[in-house]
């Protein structure tokens, strides 16, 4: 083999891929706004976004589709980044917030607040974060044996996921009278979400994106192994805890607005790895963009294909995600 930079290692190639994903995102965003019971063309969409003409088109775009598409993008971005981080810190390619129980941890805590203490609804993201962190801590404790054992992470994660999942189902059954749309929470859905949800999640997305870009190199070093990372001067414990907390926060904020949306954190980082390699400096921005793109397209699909019936976007994700999961296991 000769000493030439392979295509995947070239900076220009990586940046072009990121630009292509960004263009796809823009295309998906416009498509999502255009399609539905009323179809609109691009000019009309811009027209009604720019000025409130009181028309029904304006209503549909401004109150329904636009916030929904923005929310889809933010949720996709958060879940994809959360998955990308977890795969690194837990040294396991199957680590995804929904598979290893971090989402269910967040979900259980969120559900408890929503059905039992609805007066504290504004605390949902924070409480969900506690649930996600709790799940992460339990996984670490179970999977730790003189260092992180990748196979134990998944086993512990599946157990944690089942436990919290049971808690969620139990709560939903016991308080079935108070729960509207339990099914959509369990599967993750963007239906009837609007600006308030966007406001809830937006700060977490912004903070998360900034932090992952600043600290990407630390994660690159952490994946070399604990002893190597320490030798290079990385504070391994602080880095691992910090990144886990960030992953939990991003997953929790997504769960608290759309419910348990699975597989985004699995499919997206892996697709990005296949395209760009493992350097987190490129992986993070690419995962954020691809996550947003994937959820936007999936939601548009979920919303329009069986119209007027709308299926939860989580079902679409599962249909895409399950085969992908199997593919990763077989590889």
């Amino acid at each position, binding site marked *: *083999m000769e*000493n*030439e*930079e*392979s295509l995947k*290692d070239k900076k220009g190639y990586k940046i072009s891929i990121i630009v292509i994903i960004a263009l796809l995102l823009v295309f998906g965003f416009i498509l999502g706004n255009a399609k539905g019971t009323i179809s609109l063309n691009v000019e009309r969409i811009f027209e009604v976004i720019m000025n409130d003409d009181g028309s029904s088109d304006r209503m549909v775009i401004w109150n329904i589709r636009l916030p929904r598409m923005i929310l889809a993008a933010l949720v996709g971005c958060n879940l994809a980044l959360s998955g990308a981080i977890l795969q690194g810190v837990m040294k396991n390619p199957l680590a995804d917030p929904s598979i290893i129980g971090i989402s269910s941890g967040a979900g259980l805590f969120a559900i408890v607040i929503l059905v039992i203490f609805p007066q504290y609804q504004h605390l949902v993201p924070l409480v969900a974060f506690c649930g996600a962190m709790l799940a992460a801590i339990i996984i670490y404790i179970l999977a730790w044996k003189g260092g992180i054992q990748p196979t134990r992470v998944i086993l512990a994660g599946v157990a944690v996921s089942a436990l919290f999942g049971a808690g969620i189902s139990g709560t939903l059954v016991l308080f079935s009278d108070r729960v509207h749309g339990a099914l959509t929470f369990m599967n993750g859905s963007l239906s009837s979400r609007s600006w308030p949800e966007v406001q809830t999640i937006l700060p977490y997305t912004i903070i998360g994106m900034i932090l992952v870009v*600043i600290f990407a*190199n630390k994660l*690159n*070093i952490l*994946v*070399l*192994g*604990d*002893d*190597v990372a*320490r*030798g*290079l*001067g*990385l*504070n391994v414990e602080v880095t691992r805890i910090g990144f886990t907390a960030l992953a939990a926060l991003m997953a929790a904020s997504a769960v608290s607005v759309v419910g348990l949306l699975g597989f985004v954190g699995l499919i997206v980082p892996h697709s990005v790895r296949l395209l760009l*390699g*493992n*350097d987190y400096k490129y992986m993070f921005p690419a995962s954020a963009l691809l996550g947003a793109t994937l959820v936007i397209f999936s939601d548009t699909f979920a919303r329009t294909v069986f119209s007027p019936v709308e299926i939860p976007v989580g079902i679409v994700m599962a249909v895409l995600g399950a085969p992908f999961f199997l593919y990763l296991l077989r590889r």
Partner: protein
Amino acid sequence: MGKEFILDIEDVNVSYKDKNVIEEINLQIPKGKIVAVVGPNGCGKTTLIRTISRSIKPNKGKILLNGENIFKMKIKYLARKMAVLSQNNTNSNDVTVKNLVQYGRFSHKSWWKGSEIEDSKIINWAIKMTKLDALSHRKINTLSGGERQRAWIAMALAQKPEILLLDEPTTYLDIAHQLEILELISKLNKEEGITILMVLHDINHAVRFSDELIVLKDRRVVRQGDPWMIIESEVLQEVFHVEAEIIMDRENHRPIFYATKVQNEHKGDEK
């Protein structure tokens, strides 16, 4: 006198689950020398290296680098003085050699400082020293064992350390590559003045390439000294349980031995 010590290990005890893994270790590592740690399997060699590199916390004792306690330093500061090549860094990584060497500069950088030009100068120097110029864009997992080991050494070099710790740098390599790595280490010591502290499995290699040897047995240091002090039948019998023929390696003026037989009372001791 006149001997300057870079590393002082004072009364260090490490235990794991209430069992001591190393006990009452007192060592002084002279600056600018090559020191090798030898000893039978399970005597605590790797634990010693991992403790000195701060991967394990001792429950007693102090480790001083140039007089400063390493456990009270910022880890980044320590990494600028001390580089480590640990044993199990064989993660199937798809990073390129150049990327890996760049990671060696981590401790010298933070977001408000660090010069790109200086960095790339040092990176190129580290790649040149380890003769990896022709492989710099190759992925680590496509390299042979010897090349990969050189890449890890290049990464450690990019840290510009005063002392380099190596845990069995020649394991799993064939004999030519073993010598190649040891010659490289020797060159780093002679030309760059880097103090070397390494664990070696092969005692003859340790004798040939180091100025001083440390012999560990049953969690303790039993001897420290120059090769002639170590290679004598008493040590070989008591520590390694072999009877041996000791001869003189004329080229290097060092002792060399070959084991003739396992000591009688030690037979069947294993397991």
